[in-house]
């Protein structure tokens, strides 16, 4: 079977699966305090009205530049941050407002893999304990009892069994990321939010971790929300990709449509800006002027109109909504 057939088959089979995660009009604002009494003087609109859904077994990639709100989106979905407005439905159940023991119970099904494999592992804990910790949180079992299970998990992510007795500092960056993945898998979750899981790694190690994540997805029937700034990594991993800019989802399409026919001017610029490791490709580069505006004071109308090479008059007044302009291809732009 060629890669293309494989991908087509995967797309077809995903069509029939249930929606695992649905995000409706999600908003997460960070308050800005100022003055003598630390009053709230404004909001950083990190995520501003984002909606999408993810099917079981699917990988949805979120891509965008720093400060676009992709990480905040991931963290809000896991309820590590409090959403300001909107709804998060996990398997049809509203988890937006639940708290306490109900939230803890729900969290069993969604886990996170973090960006920095150095900061996200406790240096004082044995690797075995790090990986067992999530299970001990939920089940009354002893460490001893769990040991064979944890060792099996460690070997599954490509670490030696002896890793169980070692400490995080004894491992390289790639191996640490494997430990983080093992910890996320320990509770057999349904959804994994991977926030820049490979951006701290070298290319040769990056490819090992990406391959591992793909294998595990099929083996454990995992659903991924894959967040990264590197469009070529996101494209490799994802079935569908959402492009974010200044807290907004500006385009959402299948992996192939997004690359072959990017519709939003920002997506076009983003794709054209990626330096390709191939001297035969001479791309028509769209170089954007200026920097991303501050999310505390976003421009009126379309958030991208200040840098957009195709901005029209309407763009500075009305904010375009995400609409389906081709089957499965959503874009928020007045051009369409």
């Amino acid at each position, binding site marked *: 079977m060629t890669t293309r057939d494989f991908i087509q088959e995967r797309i077809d089979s995903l069509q029939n699966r249930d929606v695992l995660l649905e995000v409706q009009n999600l908003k997460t604002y960070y308050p800005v305090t100022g003055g003598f009494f630390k009053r709230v003087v404004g909001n950083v609109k990190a995520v501003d009205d984002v909606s999408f859904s993810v099917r079981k077994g699917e990988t949805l990639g979120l891509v965008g530049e720093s400060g676009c709100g992709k990480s905040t989106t991931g963290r809000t979905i896991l309820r590590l941050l409090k959403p300001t407005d909107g709804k998060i439905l996990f398997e049809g159940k509203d988890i937006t407002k639940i708290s306490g023991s109900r939230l803890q119970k729900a969290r069993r099904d969604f886990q996170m893999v973090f960006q920095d494999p150095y900061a996200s592992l406790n240096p004082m804990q044995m690797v075995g304990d790090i990986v067992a910790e999530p299970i001990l949180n939920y089940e009354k079992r002893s460490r001893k009892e769990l040991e064979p299970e944890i060792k099996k998990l460690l070997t599954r992510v490509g670490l030696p069994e002896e890793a169980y007795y070692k400490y995080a500092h004894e491992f390289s960056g790639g191996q640490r990321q494997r430990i983080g993945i093992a910890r996320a898998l320990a509770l057999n979750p349904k959804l994994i939010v991977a926030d820049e899981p490979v951006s701290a790694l070298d*290319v040769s190690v990056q*490819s090992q971790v990406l391959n591992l994540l793909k294998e595990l997805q099929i083996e454990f029937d995992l659903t991924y929300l894959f967040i990264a700034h590197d469009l*070529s990594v996101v494209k490799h991993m994802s079935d569908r990709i959402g492009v974010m800019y200044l807290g907004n989802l500006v385009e959402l399409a299948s992996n192939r449509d997004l690359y072959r026919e990017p519709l939003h001017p920002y997506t076009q610029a983003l794709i054209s800006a*990626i330096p*390709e*490791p191939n*001297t035969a490709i001479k791309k028509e580069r769209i170089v954007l002027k200026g920097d991303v505006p501050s999310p505390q004071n976003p421009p009126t109308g379309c958030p991208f109109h200040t840098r957009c090479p195709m901005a029209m008059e309407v763009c500075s007044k009305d904010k375009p909504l995400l609409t389906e302009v081709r089957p499965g291809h959503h874009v928020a732009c007045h051009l369409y």
Partner: protein
Amino acid sequence: MSANYASNHQTPLLQVKNLQTGFKIDGDYFNAVEGVSFNIQRKQIVGVVGESGCGKSVMSLSIMQLLPAGIGKIRGGEIEFEGEAISKLSDKKMNNIRGKDISMIFQEPMTSLNPVFTIGYQIQEVILNHEKISKKEARNRSISLLKSVGIPRADKIVDEYPHQLSGGMRQRVMIAMAIACQPKLLIADEPTTALDVTVQAQILELLKSIQEANDMSIILITHDLGVVAEICDEVLVMYAGKIVERANVEELFNNPKHPYTDLLMKAIPKMDEDVEKLATIDGLVPSITNMPQVGCRFSNRCPKAMPECMTITPQLGEVAAGHEAACLLYDSSWPSGEKRQKEREGASAV
């Protein structure tokens, strides 16, 4: 000094000959750069690629003599700039070269700018250090430099502090500072790694236009093969302190010879390709204290390794016109070279 050369123009701008740079660990020196030789021609952009720990940054710090004092040391070899040996120059003499003839920009523009001085002051400092002009002239020059690197409102920004600027703008300031005295060589160590892609595109474009306008040479140190393909003329691939391959950029990307270069290219996901599984390189780079003394340093991770690779140290040799690789597979003095590899491939196919 350059009597061997017919004219100054034929002398490469920079010649690095068998450079060995070591770091002191527990009282002993271990070489992070081991016998590296290469030339930089005038007006050339040379990319140095490799993964973390391959010695690419240490090599550039050696050229600038900015190695951490007491820990890092050039232990052998020679660095010649315009035919003149600079690796043993005193700090005072080196100060006349640094910032004037050779300058450098770093990865993290925030940590390389001083937060308590204005941007204008920091640029003027470079100019006043090397040229006898008045402060007023230096200030005007900083403003025009800021304009030339594409900073809007340059006459205002000149009095602002680094924290008031975005990452891309700070890197532009760094570039303005580096080109203030029109250096002949610019060493850019991961200049775009901390930046977003759209900003990276702006900075690469800027570097290229400055290089053309000033007839400058650039050594671009990066881990990103995409950036290399974008702006470099020639590429050096480093692994574990050594150069394993050298070629012009088209040749390297179309015809990578060293197994390490080949795997590195296959390991990156590409926008125009759908692959289910990426190539990986098993194992890890040997640590600096535990480098194999003989044999190829990549042999323990190389899928094409032969028994000889553990015992014979490969030398950088020509594998095609203007294309060198340090690998026994292509070493004609070693009879088992390419021919042996073909036999092996044939045998494993049967």
